[in-house]
Structures are given as C-alpha cells and as structure tokens.
C-alpha cells in the first residue's frame, strides 16, 4: 500500500526530465523507437497572486480597495504590469524511430493554446488613491488568446560518442487568435480636464464568420454574418527547434536547446481599431432649462457616447499580422556521481520570451535518481522571475509503457479549496504516456 501511495505521488508531482526536455538532440541516445500516446502540459505564469488583491481582515477577506488596506500595502504588492498567462500544450501523438544510419526521426502532432491578460498598475493606482498623479500610461493593458496546431518532424544525430545534435521543423497551423493591444492609451486627469488618448488594435481571426458593423462603421459583436467553422485555419507559420547534447566525460551531460523559434502569420478577418482622443472638461452651457434630471442624464449619455466613440473599435480592412510564438531557451547540466551513478546532481536554466508579456526565466538545481528501465525520480529548486520555484519529477516504466508526470510550483500556497495561487507563481503540470518500442 505504501509503495502504491509513493508511486502515485511520484507520478502526480514531478517533471520528468525525459518528458520536459524537448531538446530535439535528446532522442539521439535512444536505442529504439517510441510512440507517445498523449501528453498534456499546462503552464500558468502569473507575476501576481491572489494575495495581491485579497487581504485577511478579521474573520473576513477584503479586497485591496477596502479602506482597511493602505495604499502602500495594496499597491506595493503589485507589479508595474500585472500579467496572467496560461499555456496548454497537447501532444496528441508522436512517433519516433531510429534509422540505419544512427539518426533518430520523430513525427509529432499536437496543439497549443495560450491566453493571458496584462493590467498596468496605474489602473489600480487611480482606483486606490485618485487622480493626483496624472498622466497615466495604460498602454500595457492588453489581452490575447491563440490556438494553433503543430505538425513536427524532428531529426537527431549523434555526431560522435559524446556529441549529438538535433533539429525539429514545425508547421504551425493557426486556428484562432484574438488580441487587444494598445500603442497608446493615456489618461490625463487634471482638475479642469480629463483627456483620453487611444490608439489600439483589436484583432480577431475567423475567416468565415464576419463580425458586423453598425452604420457608423463600429464593430458590432452582436451581429455576425457567415458560418464560423472552427476547423478552418486562420493562420500559418513555421517554427524551428534546435538542440545539442554534449557528454564530455563519463557521467557529465550538457544539454542545450532553443525551441519554438518562429511564429504564425495570422489572418485577422475581423480587425478593428480604436483611435482618437476625447477631452472632457465638464458638461457645457448648462442653462436653467437644462438643469433637469432628464436633460442632465441625456447630456451624460452623450458624453458616454463620445467616449465610446473613441474606445469602440472601428472596423478596418482585414489584415495579416506576424506574431511570434513563445520562444524557449533551455540549458541543463547533469552530473552522475561517480560513487553511485544512479544519483545525479542537476542544474538547469530556462528563458521564455513572449511577444505579448514580460519574459519568464528561472534557474534551478537539484538531484535525481535514475533506475534505467524502471523509474526516474527528481527534485529541484531554484529561483525564477516570480520567485522561488521547486519541482518534482518522476517516471515509471512497466513492460513497454512509460508513464511520466510532473509538477512545478512556487511557494506561497493557494486559496483553500481552490488552486488559485496566493503569490506570483510559475506553476506547471505535465502528464504523459509513452509506448517504448523495444
């Protein structure tokens, strides 16, 4: 029973190096082929956690905007740009085989979805303290979501006994993409005047289903024409993975890779642009006849309409835009201890660059136990862009099957009964099953 519990725990928490290491050169050392039956991996990279917005007060929780929370306590816990980012990777099937010339081929089919939201601190600053520190640059406010499929062919080749290289070419098939981003979004507030300057794009793909427009040319999301077909591609692109594995001496391994070097040319059939300035210096020329509730409400509605005239996106010509996919750079160093080579000490670093939010990085050190053909266990910890991180990884082999699972997290805990992290957090979960061809 105890063995079962431990085994399940190991499977639940850990990032199996074998699975995590997407280094295309890593397969060069495999003696036989494999069929990956499926793999799911999720990343949540948030540079703020729930504790930046929720505060215990007595027997209750209050928000950061509650009067019992000081401006320093609330705003001090926020970043200049507060980002929430989630990425789900689905590897539907992979097949790998070794050819007669020692090269290792892989074919993979998968899908990726990522979505996120960035909110500048200024918005909370205005809400919490007021408008005394104008102007406010809100152009970091953006949101996005992308769904695309990957069809990849990889090739790994051992150059020598100690050095292998690999590459993977990926055809990226864009399914859907939405993005709201601003080149300029500035709010200037003085006693006499509020001024809003905006220059923002909203990009929405969907080749067959067209968002309608109202008579003034604004996008009208309540009216559509055509039938949306989810399966129709709305973008195409290429990406390249490059890697190397170097074993300069017995027990020492250096592995480095650059993954997802490329992007997708999206076709945004429903593009819009919010552009213009609006200045509000109060309701003008209020005569005695106009000082009735109805007329004041009417004037306020007019103001609202004018503001919306700036904020609401106007339809623009459909367009193509190139957007890079998240770029990963990894480096792992592992050293199997000479007195017991099943035990290794590891060091790894990771950098992920995004075109839509702040980059993520981390560096970790750890130990791992490797019983080839049976199981692999690992533990690592380190520091990253969002603070301390730790990870468990494990895999177990039974007959020709290899089941692996992974868990990586930061510290700070979660909201009870929920998975919402309290602190800035990199959280990832991975689980997969491989059939090893022996």
């Amino acid at each position: 029973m105890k063995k079962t519990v431990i085994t399940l725990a190991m499977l639940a928490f850990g990032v199996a190096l074998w699975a995590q290491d997407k280094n295309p050169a890593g397969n060069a050392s495999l003696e036989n082929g494999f069929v990956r039956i499926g793999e799911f991996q999720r990343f949540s990279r948030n540079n703020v956690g729930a504790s930046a917005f929720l505060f215990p007060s007595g027997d209750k929780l209050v928000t950061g905007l509650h009067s019992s929370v000081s401006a320093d306590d609330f705003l001090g816990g926020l970043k200049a740009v507060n980002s929430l980012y989630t990425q789900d990777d689905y590897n539907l099937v992979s097949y790998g085989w070794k050819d007669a010339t020692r090269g290792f081929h892989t074919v993979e089919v998968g899908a990726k979805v990522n979505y996120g939201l960035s909110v500048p601190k200024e918005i909370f600053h205005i809400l919490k303290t007021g408008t005394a520190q104008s102007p406010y640059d809100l152009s970091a406010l953006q949101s996005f979501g992308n769904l695309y499929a990957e069809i990849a062919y990889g090739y790994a080749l051992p150059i020598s006994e100690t050095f292998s290289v690999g590459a993977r070419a990926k055809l990226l098939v864009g399914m859907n993409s939405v993005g709201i981003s601003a080149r300029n979004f500035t709010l200037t507030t003085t006693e006499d005047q509020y001024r809003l300057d905006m220059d923002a794009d909203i990009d929405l793909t969907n080749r067959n289903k067209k968002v309608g427009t109202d008579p003034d040319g604004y996008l009208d999301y309540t009216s559509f024409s055509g039938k949306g077909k989810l399966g129709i591609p709305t973008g195409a692109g290429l990406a390249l993975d490059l890697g190397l594995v170097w074993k300069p001496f017995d027990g020492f391994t250096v592995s480095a890779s650059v993954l997802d070097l490329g992007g997708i040319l999206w076709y945004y059939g429903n593009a819009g642009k919010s552009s213009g300035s609006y200045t509000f210096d109060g309701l003008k020329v209020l005569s005695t006849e106009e000082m009735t509730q109805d007329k004041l409400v009417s004037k306020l509605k007019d103001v609202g309409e004018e503001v919306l005239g700036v904020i609401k996106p106007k339809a623009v010509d459909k367009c193509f835009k190139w957007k890079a996919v998240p770029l990963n750079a990894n480096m792992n160093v592992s050293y199997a201890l000479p007195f017991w080579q099943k035990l290794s000490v590891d060091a790894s670093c990771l950098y992920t660059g995004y075109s839509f939010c702040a980059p993520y990085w981390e560096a970790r050190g750890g130990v791992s136990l490797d019983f080839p053909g049976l199981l692999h266990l690992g533990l690592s910890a380190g520091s990253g862009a969002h603070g301390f991180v730790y990870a468990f990884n494990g895999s177990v082999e039974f007959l020709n099957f290899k089941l692996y699972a992974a868990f990586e997290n930061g510290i700070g805990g979660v909201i009870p009964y929920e998975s919402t992290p309290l602190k800035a957090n990199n959280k990832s979960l991975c689980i997969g099953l491989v059939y090893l061809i022996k």
Partner: protein
Amino acid sequence: MHIRHFFIISLLTAFSACQHSEYDTSRGIDKEITVFTDQVSLPLGDIGPLTPKSLLGNGLPDMIKSFIQEDEQGYLVCQATGPLSSNYVAMISMGLPDPSSPADFSIPDNTGEIDANAGMLGALGFAVSPQIFTLQANNPLTEGVCVSGKLTILGEEDKTLATEEFSKVPMEASTSNEVFRLEKTDEDTFTKFKVENTVLHLPASILEKDPLNGFGSFSLDYQYKAYIYLSADFPMPLNFDVDLNAPLGQFKVQEARICTEVSNEIPLSLEVSSVMILVKQLDEEGKESLVPYEDVSVTPGLTVASGCSGNPVISPLEMVIKAKEGTTIPDIAGLELELKLLAPAGVADKRINLNQSVSFNNLRATVSGGITIPSL
C-alpha cells in the same frame, strides 16, 4: 536517507501549509471598496449663463410689477406717464385773433406728482439713477410747429432739483415729438414737476392744416423713467431653503471641495454668508422634519463680485464641505442658505438688467479621503 523518507519529506514540504486558512474565500469577501483615498478631481462643467429673467421664469412677479417694471431692454425701472394738456385745433383756432396769421398760443401751467414709487425703494437699499423726465408733444398739423416753456423738477420736501427752459423746440408735422428731455444722475429722487410758460408757436391757418378739420389736438404728456440700482447693502440677509435629495451618507465622504470661476454681469455683490446642511430627522411621533446638521462645515463668506452689462467680473470661488474628524458627510436633505446682497463697488454702470448674466465656469469638484461604495 532512505528513499521513502526522501519523498515523504519532499511531499510534506510541497503541500503542507500550502492552504492558507486566512484566505478561505468560503467565509465571504467583503466587497465594500473605498476608492480615491487621496483625492479625485472631476471637471463638472459650466453652468450658465443664467439671467435673473431665466431664474424668475416668466419675468417679474405680479406683486413687484406694480412698482418695478422691466423696460424693453430688460432694465429694472420705475416709470410713470401722464397727460399735461390737450387742446383741439378748432378750439385754438377760435381763440386766435387772426387765424390766417401765425400766432403764439399759451398753454396753462401744469404741476404734478411723479407717481413712480421710486422713493419707496430707498428703504431696501435701492436707488434710482439715471432719472429721465421727458415731455412729449403731439403735433396734429401737416406743418411743423415750435414749442417753448419751462420745466422745474422737485424732490423730497419740494426741493428744487432742476429748472430748465426750452425755447422754440421744433415739432415735426403729424407726429408725437419729444420736445424736452431732462436726465439727471443725482441721488435725489424726482417727486414732482412743474411745466410753466408753455407756448405753441403756430403757423397761419392751422384749421386748414389739420387733417381732422379741427378735431386734431395738441397734447402734452410727461414720461418719467428711472433705472434701479442697489445703492447700499440690502438691509437684511435673504434666507433660502434648497430641497435636495443627496444620499451621500453611504459614500462616507469626508471632504469635498467645489471650485468655480463666477463670471457676473449683475451689478450686485452676492455674499453667501452661511450654508447649513439639513438632514432628515424623525421626532418621537415618527414625524419627519429637516434639521441642521452641525458636524459638517461649509466654507462661509463666499462673495461673488459685482459686474455690469458687457463687463463681467470674474470671482474665483472655493467651497469646502468638510465633515468633522471621525465623521462623514451624511445624506443631505437640503441646504439652508443665507445670502447677502451688497452694493456694487467699482462698477461704472450700476443699472440692474434682467438679461444680465451670471455664469459658473470651470466648475470642478475634488473629493478627499475616499469615496466608499458599499458593494460592487
């Protein structure tokens, strides 16, 4: 370390104490928020131009109209008119020694009181200036004639204010003519007049020159018009109650500052000497009444400087509504205003006109200490 211990410790490290009970959302989240805790400023706009006429709705109330009128340009005036004499052409012609020759015709002297109530205004601090007394004469003939005479204006206690003679003032044919005009800016109010030695210098054969064959008449009328202004501070404060329904209590506002620049053409200085906030209160019988609320102060002594037509004077005003330490502004049911009307200072034209305007420009509000919203 045994491998089993290694993993147990690892798991405990990872997951024990990860659940922070103080963040248990099932206990509920207090959704009350207080925004803009330092201060927030908001431009409110411009109110106006407001004119006394627009504020009064349909012009002067009937009660006031009996002694103060609005002239065709909107000025507040006291005025009176009255006939002095009327002589038919036929009657004049009959009295002439030789109607076929030019002749002078004397009109009997006239004395009268100016019934314009201008003197009554003094008790309220108002005075009249300028005062204009005119003589209007109607010439029924198809040929011009001339008129001569002497006018004396008397004030209180029959004090002579002016004596003017006019000689051979031409009167155009077949129309009413202003034959004499006296305009004075003295402080003394006209109360009586005397028109003496009035002589019509007639042409020959006036009967033939009367289209009405003698039924036309030479008439002489007076017109008195006096422009009203505030010469001294209005003797008593004016109290106004303004009904409001401003449920501000829930927002827990501590201090609000309202600023504006008042552009005033009205030649009156207005001092808001006191503003009292009224709140609803239930007495023992459950009857609702409005009572002053002492825990909120409003800046007193706001003064709007006087201007005049075409030359508005701008007065920056700042009103601070502040709750006492530890309290907030309550639900406001009304305002009790005490206003003082002060005599204009440094103004060339003091005449009050119902079309003179007052505008509240660049009205803006600043709230300090936060605005609480009970629940999102």
